C-alpha cells in the first residue's frame, strides 16, 4: 500500500470512529454525564479509604419527582451514596431510610445544587431505601446517577 493510500485509509477509519463515537455519545451521554458528576462528588472520599463501586443506578426524573433504590448494607461498614446530574441549575437530594421507613442517615449528609450525598453507618445489617429526588430543575426531565462507596 502506498503512503497516500494508507493515509486515505487512516482518514476514512478516523471518520468512521468519529461517527461511531458521536452516535454512542448521542445515545447514552446524559446518564453517563450524570455519573461523572456523581463520581466527582465521590472523589474526595476515595482518599479517605472509601471503595467506590463500579455499578451505579441512573435514570431521569421530572422536577419534584422521587425514586427509591433498595440496597443491602452491612453493619460494621460505613457507606456514602453520592448523586449527581449534569444539569447545573438543578437541585437534587438523596436520603437513606431503614426497612421500617425511619430516616437512618448521619447528620453530615449534604446537598449542594446538582450534587448531593448521604452518609450512613448502619445500625443493623439488612435492606435500606435510598430516596433520590430532583427538587428543582430547569429541564423537563433531569438525568441523575447514584454511586456508592464503603469502607
Amino acid at each position, binding site marked *: 500500500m502506498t503512503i497516500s493510500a494508507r493515509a486515505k485509509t487512516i482518514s476514512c477509519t478516523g471518520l468512521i470512529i468519529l461517527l461511531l463515537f458521536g452516535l454512542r455519545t448521542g445515545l447514552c451521554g446524559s*446518564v*453517563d454525564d450524570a*455519573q*461523572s458528576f456523581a*463520581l*466527582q*462528588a465521590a*472523589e*474526595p472520599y476515595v482518599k479517605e479509604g472509601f*471503595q*467506590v*463501586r*463500579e*455499578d*451505579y*443506578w*441512573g*435514570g431521569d426524573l421530572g422536577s419534584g419527582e*422521587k*425514586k*427509591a*433504590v*433498595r*440496597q*443491602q448494607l*452491612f*453493619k*460494621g*461498614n460505613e457507606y456514602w451514596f453520592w448523586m449527581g446530574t449534569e444539569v447545573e441549575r438543578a437541585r437534587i*437530594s438523596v*436520603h437513606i*431510610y431503614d*426497612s*421500617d*421507613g*425511619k*430516616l437512618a*442517615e448521619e447528620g*453530615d*449528609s*449534604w*446537598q*449542594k445544587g446538582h*450534587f*448531593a*450525598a*448521604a452518609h450512613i453507618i448502619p445500625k*443493623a*445489617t*439488612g*435492606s435500606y*431505601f435510598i*430516596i433520590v429526588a430532583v*427538587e428543582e430543575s430547569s429541564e423537563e426531565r433531569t438525568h441523575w*446517577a447514584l454511586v*456508592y462507596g*464503603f*469502607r
Partner: protein
Amino acid sequence: MIPIRKPLQVCAVATVALSLSTWAEQPPQRIDVKQLSQKIEGVVVPLPNEVFGALNKLGSVNWKEYVRTNKSSNFTERPRIALLLGTVIADGFIAVQAEDAPAVRDIGQRVQALARGIGVERSITGHAKAITEAADKRNWEGVRQELDKTQSSVQQAMNEVHDEKLSQLVSLGGWLRGTQVLTSIVTKRFSPEGAELLHQPDLLAYFQTRLASMPEFNVPIVHEIHEALGEVRPLIDVGNAHISSDSVKKINDITTRLDNGIVTR
C-alpha cells in the same frame, strides 16, 4: 438499563469543592415504605469484600485458610461458566484479604480463561493485566478495585449482547462463594454480630426471582441452586430475631454443597 454497569471513568475535571457546611434540607424523619414499592429501582449485588470487610471488624480472620487457586473443571455450558466466573472472582477477593500475591495472579489468569469461554475476554484483558501488576506491587486496594472492574466489565459485555441472565449468574456465583466463606468463618467462631451479616432476605428474594426466570438454562446446578435458596430463605429471613448458630451451620452446609456443584463436573 438500571442499575448500570460501566467502567469507572477517571474524572479529568478538578475535584468539586463541596462545602460540608451546606447541609441538606431537613428530610422527613419517617416515610411509608409500602408506598415505595412501585418505584424501586434495580438491585446492585454487594461485592464479597463488602461483607468480608464487615466481618474483619468483628475480629481477625485467617483468610489464608480460605484461599483457593486449584483449577476447577472446564465447562462448555455458558451458565456453568458464568457461575464459576463469579465464584472465581470471589476467590480473588479472598486472596486479597489473605494478601496472597501468587494466588491473586493465578486467579487473574483463571478469570481471563473463563471470560474467553463465554466470549467476553476482550472486555477484561486490561483488568487482568492490572490485577497482576497490582498484586506484584502488593497494592491490595488496587487489586480490589480491578476485581470490581473485571466483574463489572464482564457483566456489561454480557448485557450488551443481551446475556443479562448470564450476567446475573456471575453475581450469584460470587454471592454463593462469599456466603459459603462467611458462614464457614462464623460457624468456627460464632457471634450474633457475625451471624447478622447473613441477614440478606431481599437479596435472596432477588436471586430466587431471577432464577425463576431462567427456564432455558436447563443445567442441573441452576435448578439445584434455585431449590437450595428456598431452604436458605427461612433461615435468614428472621425479622428482628437473631440468626442462630444452627442456621449458620445449615447455610454453610448448603452453600458448600452448591459450591462443589459449581466448581466440579
